[in-house]
């Protein structure tokens, strides 16, 4: 057994949150002091439809263990239809990742409104647990980028 194996696995998780609903939901989770794992790092985007598949693949390439995208609930998009496009794009992308053998649990889309601090915290909690159970992302990591 190497020394590395004894170390606790701390996953790297990127969360893309839309500015109007999910980022505000994360803020509400914060002001309600609803804790979730520090492994989650949030990137603010104007809308879930701003999330390019390139961003997700790049995160995996650079060693992320999981990527979650949060947006307004269908029907509530600030830009009326952005999350509908995001939903189709992400469904197809995730299906493709699953197809090439990447564990489907490493990617997730969740709709979180600005009022759903509890849901945000719970979702993040679940997602971290899922990634913990899947372990380190070895399939998609670009070895050059590992420290």
């Amino acid at each position: 057994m190497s020394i590395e194996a004894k170390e606790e696995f701390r996953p790297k998780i990127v969360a893309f949150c839309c500015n109007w609903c999910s980022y505000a939901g994360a803020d509400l989770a914060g002001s309600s002091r609803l804790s979730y794992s520090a492994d989650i790092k949030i990137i603010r985007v104007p809308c879930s439809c701003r999330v390019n598949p390139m961003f997700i693949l790049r995160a995996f390439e650079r060693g992320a263990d999981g990527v979650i995208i949060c947006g307004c609930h269908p029907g509530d998009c600030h830009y009326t239809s952005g999350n509908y496009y995001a939903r189709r794009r992400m469904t197809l992308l995730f299906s493709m990742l699953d197809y090439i053998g990447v564990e489907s649990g490493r990617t997730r889309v969740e709709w979180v409104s600005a009022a759903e601090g509890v849901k945000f915290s719970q979702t993040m909690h679940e997602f971290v647990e899922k990634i913990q159970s899947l372990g380190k992302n070895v399939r998609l990591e670009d070895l050059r980028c590992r420290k």
Partner: protein
Amino acid sequence: MQEIVNRAKELLADGTVKRVLGWKAGDLPYNPEPAYFEKEEDFEDFVYNGFCGANLSKYMIEASKLEGKTLVFLKPCDTYSFQQLLKEHRVDRDKAYIIGVGCKGKLDIEKIRGLGIKGIESIEGAEIEDEAETLKIQTFYGEKTCAYKDAMLERCHVCKGKDHMIYDEQIGESKETKDADRFAEVEKIEAMSPEEKFAFFQKELSKCIRCNACRNVCPACSCRKCVFDSNKFDSSQKANVDSFEEKMFHIIRAFHVAGRCTDCGECSRVCPQGIPLHLFNRKFIKDINELYGEYQAGADLEERGPLTSYQFDDAEPGIVAERR
């Protein structure tokens, strides 16, 4: 073939078209290549036979910039690509004179070689007029035969049909060659375990040399500058260091053509490494058909593509995990 040549000469002579886009014989009996014909004498080299798999639609992007009309020969499946390009304003309908040519399935030299036929000198039965069921192949080692069907490109086994989607006139008869399920291969992979899937694609994609042939031949992959060549995503093309890079390239490539890919199969035909690239595109097509309703890119000019439209009750991305 003579009928095609005669008609092309006629249209050149009466000034309807300035040039003809077709296929000319290559240095071997089985590698004709796309070419322009501008004068009557150029047609000596013209061929149209079973090996003319090349989809000429993409060449029309450049031809649309030239002066005058270009006569282009399109097989039934090629017309989908042309129409999709038309939908995306990449080709000019007024600059094209389309002759829809008949097709009885195109041949794959790799399939013939795969049958153990080597040292090929000439091939008989690949001409378009023949109704030959078998190919007679002269080799260094004597005459060999093989069934026409066994030498067909994968895409012809899942042929989209005999109808030209767009044309000015039609010459020649087409034959229905579909005898396989278009999504059978995809389903096979879908049924694998994640480990098997990963191993399968790692094996296939590790062959990729990033020659970009798939990208260059693809009628949907017709960006002026590919994202993998620009600095917009810090993703400029470079030599592969590890297996993820090709995966990223091929996933993104397939994603960029998702909903626009007509499944013409050119990517797999031209890959020098024999990677079944169509499996990526077809996975997206299968998902689109299942989740958002049957859609065939290039079948019409009006309908919105599946990634530029939506329904209120579309499936949630979580369906990917549920379907497993």
